[in-house]
């Protein structure tokens, strides 16, 4: 269960630009929503606040009863390690790790290393369609394949919340739809909450609900 209430964030000190103004949102497990909005409206800021990578000026983010805004940096980092999956526009697959290692990275972070972690990562790679290439290198992959690796990495540790920030921004439309479908499929099958931030209505269309972000509210897009 994700509960966002009265979330506000401004940048650049007093009298500065207010990016988010008292935003509230509540999502049950199994939700898969898209957040759209104009460029610069604060989509990424919202994601960072939800991920605990940024601190709100006001408001709370509560996940499964834990108010993330009360956690210190260490605790927040540990929480992220356990419960969060990320998919980035630029993939951010580490070039110096092979595919299996990239996917297994979140498991390693939890101190799980060895056959069990490798097996989980391999299964995950298999699930995103890269089963035969566990020991391939990122440099050998296309953009779409890199994003598949990223999706595998985002889900390998069974997170409660998956945040995807323009996951298809760097992909051509043909590959994009495949990736979006894959993401949706895996988020839902893991029983996680998925939030897809995009400015593409097409991409947003793959979500169960589409919310449009304004500075002071999230409203369903009809």
């Amino acid at each position, binding site marked *: 269960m994700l509960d966002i209430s009265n979330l506000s964030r401004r940048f650049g000190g007093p009298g500065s630009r207010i990016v988010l103004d008292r935003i509230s949102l509540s999502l049950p497990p199994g939700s898969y929503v898209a957040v759209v909005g104009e460029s610069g409206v604060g989509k*990424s800021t919202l994601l960072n606040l939800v991920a605990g990578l940024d601190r709100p000026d006001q408001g709370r983010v509560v996940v499964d009863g834990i108010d993330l805004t009360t956690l210190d940096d260490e605790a927040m*980092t540990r929480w992220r390690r356990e419960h969060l999956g*990320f998919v980035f526009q*630029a993939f*951010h697959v*580490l070039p110096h790790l092979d595919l299996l290692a990239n996917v297994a*990275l979140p498991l390693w972070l939890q*101190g799980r290393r060895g056959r069990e972690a490798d097996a989980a990562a391999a299964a995950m790679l298999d699930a995103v369609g890269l089963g035969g290439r566990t020991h391939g290198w990122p440099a050998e992959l296309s953009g779409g394949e890199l994003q598949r690796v990223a999706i595998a990495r985002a889900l390998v540790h069974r997170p409660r919340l998956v945040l995807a920030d323009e996951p298809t921004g760097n992909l051509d439309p043909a590959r994009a739809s495949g990736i979006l479908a894959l993401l949706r499929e895996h988020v839902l099958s893991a029983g996680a909450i998925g939030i897809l931030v995009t400015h593409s209505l097409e991409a947003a269309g793959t979500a169960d609900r589409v919310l449009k972000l304004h500075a002071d509210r999230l409203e369903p897009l009809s």
Partner: protein
Amino acid sequence: MKQGLAAVFIGGLLRRRAASALSVMAIALGVALGLAVHLINGAALAEFGRGIRTLAGEADLRLTGPASGFDDALYETVALHGSVADASPVVDIEAGVVGKDTALRLLGVDALRVGAVQPALMPRPGGDRADDAFAAFDPGGVFLSPALAAQLGLAEGDRLALTSSSGPIELTVIGRVPGAGGEAIAVVDIDVAQQRFGMAGRLSRVDLRLKPGASAEAAVRALAPLLPAGVVAITPEATVARAAGLSRAYRVNLTMLAVIALLCGGFLVFSTQALSIARRRAEFAFLRAIGLGRRRLAGWLLGEGAVLGLAGGVLGCALGLAFALAVLDWFGGDLGAGYFEGIAPGLELSPGPLIGFLALGVAAGVAGAWLPARRARAIAPAAALKAGAGDPLTVGSGARWSGPACLSLAVVACLCPPVAGIPLGGYVAVALLLAGGVLTLAPLAGVVAAACPRLPVAVGLARARLQAVPGQVVVAAAGVLASTALAIAMAVMVASFRDSVDRWLAKVLPAELYVRAAERNQAAHLTPTLQQRLADMPGVAAVDFLRYDRLILDPALGPVALIARTLPADGDELPLVGEHRVVDDPVWISEALVDLLGLAPGDALTVPLAGRGHRFTVAGVWRDYARQGGALVIPLERYRALTGDDLASNAALHLAPGVGVDEIAVAIAAAFPNGGLGIASPGEIRRRSLQIFDRSFAVTYLLEAAAVVIGLAGIAASFGAMAAARRREFGMLRHLGLTRRQIAAMIATEGGLTAASGALGGIFVGGAIALVLVEVVNRQSFHWSMDYRVPWPSLALFVVAIVALAALAAVLAGRLAMSDSAVRAVSEDW
């Protein structure tokens, strides 16, 4: 467009201020050291040459022989020779100053002759003797050069007591030698020098002015048959050149070290440029896409290197100049090595060396930028523009065979003979070892990384990165390798040298007490009477006497020391090296003579003694660290039989059991009051020798420190640039749940592993370079061997320290990566 591009490239250097500053500093350091060494030695040499020229005056030729002099009958023969216009006889001795622990250079000249050949040595009476026409002949008078007068604080009318075999000689200062300027010399009448300072019937040299039209070469040939064995005719220029040759090896060695420091600077430019280019890949791709040619792109990048080099060069020249001035002030012209004692050189600035070292700085900058620029040329715009492509940090790993090839070539270079007395092959080997070491860094880093555990995750990530991107290690660790290698090489060489010198001293100083007629004093000797009195001293069990002289074996070489001493037939009391045998008429030669004269045990050597050549057989080779120009030892009895000279310069006293060294020393001092005897225990001599040794190597510690600073700067610069380039990666890892601490640990591990690779390579390369320095460079430069010794504890400490410092430098440089802005960088637009 041009100006615009200048802003993109050169302006970019300003944006990367920290990295640029480090590169500039590194180059400046190398340039400064090189220039300073060059200027200091240049100044000393110039002053030394000027001194010799001043004293040689207008002489076209100089007849010179053993330090003990030659028969003065030669003077008349030569002065009347058809090719000689003027001849000036000179007695040149060192005389101890009574009551002071110093000796001064005392020249006996003929005031009626010296003016035509060496006007600078003309004595001028002063004070109340100014009008005395015969002051220059005054047997109780001495003339001081302005420098010596100032040094001793003496003026006309003051007394100066000098030591001699027959006791102290009281002289009165009756004038100056104004022409001698900065030379510290005292002048007396030649007759006084001969009769009162133990040179009766002998001359040290005759300076000649030739008749107009007579060539020096022809005169040398014409005079040669007239000269007794051991006396040669040489030009003053040759004397200067010989003196320069003696210290040349030392100078070249220092200059080479400075060049290696510059090389480290070049590596640093390479590191920062490689990283900066990797980081700006997309930028370049964009520029290429909008029409910038490959060649121009590479040109601009080389230009960046040149600008860094130029800035470093300018800064380095200024630093070097300041450094040179300071050092000349503090240490004198030989950086404390003792080659140019007694002169006070002034700095002479000519544009040549300044431009040269500036150019070296630029060259280092350009060379450092060369490979990265080539790399940038190869950027494919389309691929690089596509976001998300991996960073291309593979530069510098080179072909697999290139490292071993360099290392093998280094072995070959070591086998080359010296060129003009300079161990060129040795230096080439050093360069090849460094290059080979750098080229072997990538596989080495792989080995180091593989030795690391996979957990904790920070270590695992660092290990994975090192294994996957060894090029990064090369870039960052090249500087560490170079500086570690340099530091270790110097440390091992100095330790080997010091250790060898120490053991050598123990071998050459077997007695309990040493007595010198006077400190470095040729004028004073132990006469047979004194020798007997020493031997008869209660508590003295035995005395070995030594007679020193300096001979000229070959006009092309400097003077060679002759040591006549009591010695067992097998020469066992000498620090012998290699094969030796028992022969009739033995002579034991120092290692320098093996190299300079090409002699080996069993060979014949003709030694000029008392004006006649005598044939000796080389019985063995001994190690001599005291006389770079070479030394030979013959038995004292043989020397006395051949020369009739029964004086001694030195005595080594073996004491009766139970007799204290101090008590005998006191007894001797009391028994020979005013005798000018110097008394020293082996411990004292050893302490003083090692003190001089340490002083002359002080400058190498400076170079080592500089190299280490440069190496660490390399790590810091590399990681600074890398951290900037990897901000998004760090940001993503933070997303995934790595704590700041873990990221810091990861960077530190990478830095430590990188430094460890560099240091490991540096240990091997440095050890090899030390071997080259010991076996090739020193042997060929200074003609002496030494035993290889590795100062393990201090080296281990050094390596641990450099790895820790490198990790710290990496973390500090990567601090940026742990900021929140890095987190946001993940979703920054490209």
